């Protein structure tokens, strides 16, 4: 029997936050018992071959509160999230299935609004929904609704993504400003008496990924969409998987003032905040200019930047430095980011 290393006595919120606890659960329990045949590190989507035809496959659940927020809603996220997981695994979404877990008493109008949001997102992404399932749970057992989607996609040509192909000197590209989604949700919950003109960045990143791949496919080595746990978590996973260091220049990381202000106020690091419409790519140095140019010229990629590069050191870690010469390590979080008050 494969060895189970997961020793936590109970499941806590941190196990779902995408940071270290999530990784412990996935690598310590799920991977040895369920993904035993897999040799590769776990990416955003799996690659399988059916009768010699490669396909990408992924699934994601959406449990957001509130259901609607500036710039998006759970229905839209449920489509875009799964499409994005396929896109950053180098695949164009082909078809999806969906499961709704609905809470007794949920107003039909709210459900209809979310189904419409999904329908619009499907049309924009050019992907088909081919089936689904519905369950209803008692009042109080779900926050209105949970949605799970699963999708399959067709790999884009000439693209070979693998953290082990990442080398020192490779450039790290980011598709746009970070933190919009996480901070929007934090503010939309209404616990903080803070207001900001901010919208979730929820969108399908496939057009941007395709623009990048079209120009720079042979040089693209790795991609990830930095959702829960933010850019810091994605890049820490890369650092660990490739055994190298990721060095970022703080001033180059695109960020809106509202996000920066909220993070300063709450003692949060924007690199830990969730995104729903961005991706990080590592590109060979010779292709970096082409790649950036391709992103900047695609609609919605105007703010893409080279934010850093891969170095030998610090091995297995992410280092952020500033123009004035200070630097710090940015780790994955243990659980959800918590505001510091005292």
């Amino acid at each position, binding site marked *: 029997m494969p060895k189970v290393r997961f020793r936590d006595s*109970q*499941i*806590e*919120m*941190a196990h779902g936050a995408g940071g*270290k*606890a999530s990784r412990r659960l996935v690598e310590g329990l799920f991977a040895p018992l369920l993904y035993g045949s897999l040799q590769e590190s776990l990416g955003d989507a799996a690659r399988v071959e059916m009768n010699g035809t490669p396909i990408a496959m992924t699934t994601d659940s959406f449990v957001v509160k509130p259901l609607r927020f500036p710039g998006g809603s759970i229905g839209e996220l449920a489509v875009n999230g799964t499409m994005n997981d396929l896109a950053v695994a180098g695949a164009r979404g082909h078809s999806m299935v969906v499961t709704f877990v609905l809470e007794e008493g949920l107003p039909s109008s709210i459900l209809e609004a979310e189904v419409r949001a999904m329908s619009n997102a499907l049309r924009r992404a050019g992907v088909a929904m081919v089936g689904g399932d519905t369950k209803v749970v008692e009042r109080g057992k779900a926050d209105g609704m949970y949605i799970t989607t699963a999708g399959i996609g067709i790999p884009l040509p000439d693209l070979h993504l693998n953290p082990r192909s990442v080398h020192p000197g490779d450039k790290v590209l980011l598709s746009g400003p970070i933190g919009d989604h996480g901070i929007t949700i934090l503010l939309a919950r209404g*616990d*903080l008496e803070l207001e900001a003109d901010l919208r979730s960045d929820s969108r399908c990143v496939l057009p941007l990924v395709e623009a990048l791949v079209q120009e720079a496919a042979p040089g693209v080595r790795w991609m990830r969409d930095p959702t829960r746990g933010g850019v810091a978590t994605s890049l820490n996973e890369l650092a660990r998987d490739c055994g190298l*260091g990721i060095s970022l220049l703080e001033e180059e990381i695109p960020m809106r*003032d509202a996000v*920066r*202000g909220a993070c*300063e106020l709450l*003692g949060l690091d924007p690199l830990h905040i969730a995104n729903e419409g961005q991706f990080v790519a590592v590109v060979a140095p010779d292709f970096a200019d082409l790649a950036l140019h391709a992103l900047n010229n695609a609609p919605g990629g105007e703010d893409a930047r080279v934010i850093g590069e891969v*170095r030998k*050191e*610090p091995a*297995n*870690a992410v*280092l952020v*430095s*500033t*123009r*004035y*010469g*200070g*630097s*710090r*390590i*940015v*780790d994955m979080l*243990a*659980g959800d980011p*918590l*505001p*510091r*008050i*005292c």
Partner: protein
Amino acid sequence: MRFVDEFRDPGLITKAVEEIHRLAQPGRHYRIMEVCGGHTHAIYRFGLKDILPEDIELIHGPGCPVCVLPMGRIDDGLALAQKNGTIFAAFGDMMRVPGTHGSPFEHKARGTDVRIVYSPADALQIARKNPKRHVIFFAIGFETTAPSTALTLMHAKREAIRNFSVFCNHVTIVPAIRAILDSPDMRLDAFIGPGHVSTVIGCRPYEWIARAEGKPVVTSGFEPLDLLQSIVMLLRQLRAGEARVENQYKRVVPWEGNRAALKAMAEVFELRPHFEWRGLGFISQSALRIRKEYADWDSEQRFDVPETRVADPKAAQCGEVLKGVLKPAQCKLFGKECTPEHPIGALMVSSEGSCAAYYNYEYRKTASLVTEISSVA
């Protein structure tokens, strides 16, 4: 962004660093303590050690309220929260801090109703909305957060909200500084004075440090340029052989403090005869308790508190690190048994604790790498 960008300006920062180099006397080693956990966090977050001369040693002080809270107090607070229908409210800072039977988050997973609040007023609001349930606000912090707890208690009394009480762990900064200075193995040259605490208490309470102990104090802001300017001001005093209290953080800190906040504190709180500090032991008159006029809103006066005492693990050398005698990485447990995910010692539990800040921001940098970065900049 105003009040941020101008204090991170590379040109001004370079100038301040040059000034520090100019003022530091060759061959002299300076030991400067930043009292406040917020400063410790900022020093690591902005990587100031990378740009300061090696002979300026920053020693991390006792000013992290989460770190200095004894585990027994967390156990007591969580024990009170086990009574049916109780809601346990605290700042996010507390949520992962381990008690003997787990952190507030672990208790939440086992069924305790644990809520994160952003101010004591939010906890009182939960009580207003849930009149049939008792809400305990687990109050922590130095004089920075104590006034808002005081005001909340005044509101609770005025509105006669009976289902609300405060488990008070507020501490005061000056006795902790005194304890550090009284420690025989402690040799410090100067202090970077607390920023947020001083917005409430002002700068006067530090005057004895300059007068009686002959150590300069500069109350400082939290941006890189604030801290560097404060070090410049301290070095100028040391060079001139002076010891005064100066205020670098004038844009926020009034010399006399905030009278309204001090008045609210005096109305609600009185000094405890003594209070235990994790890593430092008992310090007399170093913490606040709720006056008997507010007994109905004081969890300790209202309920039976178990008064749990938990000894710090013997192997952890928190006291030595807290006093600046040891560096975080010199502790035997650092990075092995004791990490931010599984903190054993006090200073690893909050991101403002010096061990956690060192672990998170500094630990995995290599010497070669730091040089590489400074050459780029």
